[in-house]
């Protein structure tokens, strides 16, 4: 039975915010894939369908008490790892990478599920440390194993964007849990020093992307072209933009992924600085709500889950917009709730479901 208090504490504002962002996404996808009267793409309708599934996922994530998720965190983690292994063995290859798992009509990207399951398992492990007496030397080994297993599998897919995201999320969770900072600082410096060595493990297109990011002008017709065109699109939007569905850069299909990774360029070009800032503010408010929830939650596991998901969303926003605005290399990360794509949308909705879950049960003890 649903507790009446749960409804009182349910944050309808947060739910509305997420739906509003998704709505903006559908509009932007429509604009980005609409070319002339007779050739309207149906992608925006498909996105609506994904949103429907996402809402279902959100409701599922709300209905289970987060303490139950805490109990089964290791099981969920194990299942998601198995999915990753299956993908590594027999997944569908798309754009030079093995990322997709086809189950009947559904195409799953297990790397997306891993983001949630990793947040759950790390939150469980880190909150358990409290009872076991804090960080010991062994804790570092366990954490390394928990993060390293999925990370290795995703790196070899290869999915550079998701790998970086997972690493960032894990570090954030460890940081928030109160772990000592210095060992991680040393590790970070060490990694930087080893970069030339790690470079050899990157695939040619990944090296290319990073190199081109550093000097886009050297390759205006190749990968650097994306960054240049995206900057022109955003910049030429000016203060008020060129008008919805009037963008000249984005409407010319200058980017192969303009309705996915480069959707922000479309919005910025067509609605200008005003629209871009409104969108960033909406995102900012979403992140604020997340941090607020984490601060107000009494339960260690709940706090960490919310902090993990919130930072995941924040990193996505930052990396994606940063990429389209020429701050980061092109790493294939979607803009949360806006970019076209089913897997990431479902993950995000479930993530927000978990925030809502923790938020409405934050006053319940035990």
């Amino acid at each position, binding site marked *: 039975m649903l507790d009446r208090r749960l409804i009182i504490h349910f944050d309808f504002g947060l739910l509305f915010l997420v739906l509003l962002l998704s709505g903006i996404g559908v509009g932007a996808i429509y604009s980005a894939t609409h070319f*002339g009267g007779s050739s309207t793409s149906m992608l925006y309708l498909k996105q609506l369908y994904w949103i429907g599934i996402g809402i279902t996922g959100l409701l599922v994530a709300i209905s289970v008490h987060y303490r139950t998720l805490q109990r089964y965190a290791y099981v969920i983690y194990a299942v998601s790892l198995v999915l990753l292994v299956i993908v590594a063995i027999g997944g569908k290859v798309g754009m030079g990478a093995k990322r997709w798992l086809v189950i009947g009509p559904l195409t799953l990207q297990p790397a997306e599920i891993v983001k949630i399951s990793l947040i759950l398992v790390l939150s469980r492990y880190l909150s358990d440390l409290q009872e076991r007496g804090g*960080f010991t030397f062994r804790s570092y080994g366990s954490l390394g194993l928990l993060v390293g297993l999925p990370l290795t599998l995703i790196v070899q897919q290869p999915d550079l964007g998701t790998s970086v995201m997972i690493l960032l999320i894990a570090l954030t969770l460890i940081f928030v849990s109160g772990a000592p900072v210095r060992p991680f600082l040393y590790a970070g410096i060490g990694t930087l020093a080893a970069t030339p060595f790690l470079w050899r493990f990157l695939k040619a297109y990944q090296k290319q992307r990073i190199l081109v990011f550093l000097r886009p002008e050297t390759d205006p017709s190749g990968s650097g072209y994306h960054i240049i065109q995206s900057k022109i699109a955003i910049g030429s939007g000016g203060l008020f933009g060129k008008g919805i569905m009037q963008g000249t850069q984005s409407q010319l299909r200058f980017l192969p992924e303009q309705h996915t990774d480069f959707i922000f360029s479309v919005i910025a070009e067509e609605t200008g600085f005003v629209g871009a800032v409104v969108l960033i503010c909406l995102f900012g408010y979403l992140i604020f709500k997340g941090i607020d929830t984490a601060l107000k939650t009494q339960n260690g596991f709940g706090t960490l889950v919310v902090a993990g998901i919130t930072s995941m969303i924040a990193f996505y926003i930052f990396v994606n917009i940063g990429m389209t605005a020429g701050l980061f290399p092109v790493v294939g990360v979607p803009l949360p709730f806006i970019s076209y794509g089913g897997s990431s949308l479902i993950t995000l909705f479930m993530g927000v479901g978990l925030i809502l879950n923790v938020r409405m049960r934050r006053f319940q003890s035990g």
Partner: protein
Amino acid sequence: MFYNGNVLEPVLHQRRLRILSIFLATFFFILVSRVWYLQILRGSFFKEKSEKQRIRVQRVLSPRGEFVDRQERTLVDTKPGFNVTLTLEDAQDLDQSLERLSQLVNIPEVELRGKIETARANGIRRFQMIRLLSNVDWPTVALLEAHQMDLGGISVSPEPLRNYRFDGLFAHAFGYMGEINGAELGREAFSEYRMGDVIGKTGLEKGLERYLKGVDGSRQVEVNSLGRIIQEMAEHSPVPGSRIVLTVDYDIQHSLEEAFGDGSGAGVVLNPNTGDILAMVSRPSYDPNVFSGGIPAEKWKELTADEQHPLTNKAISGQYAPGSVFKIVMAVAALEERAITPQELVYCRGYTKFGGRRFRCWKRRGHGKMDLHRALVQSCDVYFYEVGQRLGIDKIAEHAENLGLNRPTGIDLEGEKPGLIPTRAWKKKTRNEPWYPGENLNAAIGQGFILVTPIQLANLVAAIANGGTVYRPQLVKRVENYRGEVLKEFASEVRYDAPLSAKTLHLVTQALEGVVSEKRGTGGRVRMKGIRVAGKTGTAQVVRMKQDEEESEDVPEKFRDHALFAAFAPVDDPEIAVAIIVEHGGHGGSAAAPIAGKVLERHFRKTGRLPELDQGKAKTPVERAEGRRAVMAGGREN
């Protein structure tokens, strides 16, 4: 410092969360600053950049698939053509551009503006091309290039044009191309198409559109402020359309076209063992090339207003009374139903009296004593009047249908007509009248209500040739993609098997051979040395004549009889079947049979059963026969 105690004390992780939120707030601040930098500080710079060096994505149309004949000789391909297009965004001074273009190509400005309006109404975007003129010639291209400074936004763009190498050859089967219309654009099958695209409108071009089309490619180009291409950036190559291998044999088709000359009518040549169409002609024809670059209005008017219907494929949708060719069906029905024995004699005195009316034989003096063989050979009407009375229309119809009449043959072309074989029930239903016994007599000589299409006739003789199997006539052997991989193969398809006894087949075939080979036979003009040909002539009345009126050469052409001839060869092992109808040609034996003769001759020359023709010199048996017959014109057969 290292923590070894209670790591999750609330104070500590609240502090850590605050640090995190400061980090995140910084992120957002960086994003807003960056966007502010790009859009506000450098906004005008990027705006200028987006206007100056514009990137366009142009479609690269896929070359349409070719049609080749059964020996893979190309009949239809594509050739480069040029369109004049307008991109609104590049036209700084639209009025000036249009005025100048109008002067240069001598087309009224209103017409050009009309095209722009239509495109706008269809939701064209500013950076998309609007086609103003199609298939312009080289001098025009050069002229426009020379004046390009006055023609901002207007450019010449290449587009592959459909090229029918042999003009009107096989035109009705190919069909023609045309611009897609609004209704078609709305259909699921055309979801990938855009306004202004050219699609197959009729015939095989239409039926095989999805194979022929291919997949368009795209090309990223950088254009300057006038819309001229500065540089190409990337290209996705188009996937060419699939190649269609037809069943048609160019040599046979060519000989059939040639033999028809200026006559109007239709002809079909089949392989009786597979149903493969070797040739198909409908006359008068048209040149599908004139449609390829958009047909001029007056040309279209001319074609549609023509009384002889050049756009109609008469081979499948022309319905004609079969005349005496129908006697093949009558003979089959009579023998199968045992309505008459092969030996029984019927006396022909030139007419039969029935129900107070005289039904004439074409030979007014009468044929005398006729058995089945002689009656077929000499096409005696009186004999078949008798057979018709004995059988009755319903039995006649039953056997006619077994041989593929009264229903479409199922050829893969639109617009096929079913023909008509009447029955009692049909007449009651459609006319609410009983069947009069006298109508059996009309039916017996292929007149009255009976209608057949040329392809049905070809199928009918093919069925006699192969022992009673009615195949679905086929135009396409297989479809191959541009790499030469076979996408689809069309096996021959049996539609019905007429239950004919060997004896019936033997008797009828023997008689049909007599039509050609015997002295009194009506089809002597296809006689060939060393090859046994079986056939049947027919002459179908166009207007009903008064009982005693004699038809003559001074009857206006459109009231003259249709001439028919259907044949197959060789009798011992048939490999080719032909049906010819010459509209208002007069007599089957003199107007239609020679056409069939030329086709058969070409076929047997090709297969080596007749000697190859020495250019011009050696006269073939057919040609010699023609010379002979020309002298003795005048005898009329039915």
